[in-house]
């Protein structure tokens, strides 16, 4: 072999030698001694910046030439003079070059190459040209946690994760967006979801008893996607497994029962100026009446089927409809109630008659006193036996039934409430009267025997001044003015006074 080497040398020294012969010699040399050759060409695998502040490049060495080989990375940079060598060969492991913050610049071009050297020569790799912007690729998100949450018997999966390590952005320099994928254990069908910049996600369409796999990945400033995080598994508990929670289920049932049967119903939504019950009744006139608010129609006749008692209190815009609500079950649709009496009295009367009635009543009972209870306008709901008052009150703005308060109570068999005492209205059925001389919010100017009757109507008493009314049909009233239109044109009946 040495001979061949010498031959090669001297032949190259001056003697003309055919190129082919030389090549043959070289080949023989390499076959004979594979350890003595320049290194193989290294390959630059790529570079990556996980947080837009540093980056690393890796290469793969070529075949070893048999001699100790050293790899060096050189780079050039836009706006930088000359060629420079890698600042750090160690931090990122073997066959790598790490560029720290001081050496990393973005929006400038890097021109990088690796050179393998041994005693026999240097072999450069193909260069890599890139801008750090192009090689940004974050690490995968971390700490993916899965929690099954139960909400009203339909479980959902709450997925949480943390941003990839080394990317704490409090300056707005980077924006990380996440994407996750979920699949059932035994299927190959991944479902992808985008989570934007949020680090949590709730998955609602899950089935009990199934094991789900979840993976999350992220992108930084629309860079390439990171790897998928490690798969996290979760098993959704079966419904049967809820037996241990039977006591809680029982408790829920008890609460439901109490709510439905013992406590008063929750009032439904109301629209000011619109009578829900009337709308429900479906009668065209009623519907119209329910919707018309601002017109002055002549008063209409009370409806026959209005058997419902009601107590409507309007407090500057809030409608309270306890009775109709209560009787929703019965599906009575009338909002203009009162009682037989009223009906019988009213149904024949024409508007003019009603007017007459009104006048009559006015004269007879010298009631007429308009009163406004600091914004509370009343429409008395019930007819009481012997109640001779005519509660008619004009409601200026609410389009509701008017009640006229009377100062002097004439022949009243029933018990009247002095509505002027109403101090405050709380919720549907409750109105708080001033204490003065009203025990249990009754202002009985004439104590009648029917007091007890009326008390029977009290459904619930909350404290001193608060009475919950139980609408109750007691029928008679001498006077009923069926309907009257407020200035807003609302059609309604006016039940006689009363109440407790």
């Amino acid at each position, binding site marked *: 072999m040495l001979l061949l080497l010498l031959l090669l040398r001297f032949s190259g020294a001056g003697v003309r030698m055919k190129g082919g012969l030389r090549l043959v010699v070289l080949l023989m040399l390499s076959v004979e001694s594979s350890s003595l050759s320049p290194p193989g060409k290294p390959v630059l695998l790529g570079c990556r910046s996980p947080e*837009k*502040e540093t980056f690393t490049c890796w290469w793969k060495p070529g075949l070893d030439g048999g001699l100790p080989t050293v790899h060096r990375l050189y780079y050039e940079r*836009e*706006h930088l003079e000359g060629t420079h060598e890698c600042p750090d060969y160690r931090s990122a492991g073997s066959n790598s070059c790490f560029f720290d*913050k001081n050496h*990393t*610049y*973005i*929006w*400038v*071009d890097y021109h990088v190459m690796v050179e393998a050297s041994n005693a026999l020569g240097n072999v450069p790799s193909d260069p890599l040209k890139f*801008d750090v*912007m192009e090689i940004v690729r974050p690490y995968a998100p971390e700490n993916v946690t899965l929690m099954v949450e139960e909400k009203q018997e339909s479980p959902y999966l709450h997925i949480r994760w943390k941003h990839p390590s080394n990317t704490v*952005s*409090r*300056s*707005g*320099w980077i*924006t990380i967006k996440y994407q996750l994928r979920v699949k059932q254990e035994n299927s190959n069908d991944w479902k992808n979801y985008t989570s934007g910049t949020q680090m949590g996600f709730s998955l609602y369409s899950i089935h009990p008893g199934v094991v789900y796999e979840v993976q999350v990945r992220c992108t930084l*400033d*629309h860079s390439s996607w990171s790897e998928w995080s490690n798969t996290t598994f979760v098993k959704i508990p079966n419904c049967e497994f809820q037996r241990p929670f039977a006591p809680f289920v029982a408790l829920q049932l008890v609460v439901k029962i109490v709510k439905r049967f013992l406590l008063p119903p929750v009032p439904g939504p109301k629209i000011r100026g619109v009578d829900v019950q009337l709308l429900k009744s479906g009668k065209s006139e009623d519907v119209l009446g329910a919707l018309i608010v601002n017109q002055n129609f002549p008063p209409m006749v009370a409806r026959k089927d209005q058997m419902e008692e009601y107590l409507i209190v309007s407090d500057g815009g809030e409608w309270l409809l306890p009775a109709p609500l209560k009787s929703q079950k019965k599906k009575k649709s009338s909002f203009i109630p009162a009682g037989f009496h009223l009906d019988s009295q009213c149904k024949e009367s024409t508007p003019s008659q009603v007017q007459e009635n009104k006048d009559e009543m006015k004269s007879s009972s010298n009631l007429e006193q308009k009163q406004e209870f600091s914004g509370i306008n009343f429409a008395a709901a019930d007819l009481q036996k012997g109640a001779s008052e005519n509660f008619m009150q004009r409601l200026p703005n609410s389009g509701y039934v008017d009640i006229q308060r009377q100062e002097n109570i004439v022949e009243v068999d029933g018990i009247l409430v002095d509505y002027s005492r109403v101090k405050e209205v709380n919720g549907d059925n409750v109105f708080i009267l001033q204490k003065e001389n009203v025990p249990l919010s009754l202002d009985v100017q004439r104590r009648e025997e029917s007091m007890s009757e009326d008390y029977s109507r009290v459904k619930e008493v909350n404290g001193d001044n608060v009475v919950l009314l139980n609408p109750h049909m007691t029928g008679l009233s001498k006077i009923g003015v069926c309907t009257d239109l407020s200035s807003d044109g609302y059609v309604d009946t006016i039940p006689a006074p009363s109440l407790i």
Partner: protein
Amino acid sequence: MAQRRTNGSKLLMTVLCVVAACRAVPVTDLLDRASQRSDRLHSLSTMLTQELDSHFPPIGRVIMPRPAMCHTSSLQTPNDKEQALQVSESDLLSLARSLLRAWVDPLLVLSSSANTLPHPAQNSISNKIQELQEHSKSLGDGLNVLSGKMGPAAQTMSLLPYRGGNDLGQDKISKLINFQFLLSCLRRDSHKIDSFLKVLRCRAARMQPEMC
């Protein structure tokens, strides 16, 4: 009579101005909107370069002009995080506006060339360029409003004229190469604009850490 009319219109104008001032959008909100637009702009430009790259002649990568040849390369901008965080708000805004302004003309050129681009994804590319133009215009308007609120320093803009002409090349290869070159310049600049605006947004929203 005429005087009454002018008085009336003056009054109306005053009222309108007061109303407009009272209902002015706060700066943080404007910045947030601007960042979302710039994010979309950058997303589009990134997708465009990738799409064009999918069917690109290999020779093109070799003879592609260097980014230093971009028409906006003369503008001095921060080149790393530390530098960017040290730039003042008005300067950041001014840089973003200058870069954005510099792309109005080239986008027109790109748009007209996209119609006849010899590329399989030509239609999709053309649509994205159009969307780019719209977002760019609306972002420009938004930044103009913002600069009005941030003082005179923010109002200055550098002029970066595009001198590439209306034609991107005669033959297919040079057309593609020049198109891709312009897109790569655009991608770099859109990333700059997006990064600057997001740093601005985070700085302006001290009370809202979720903006960072």
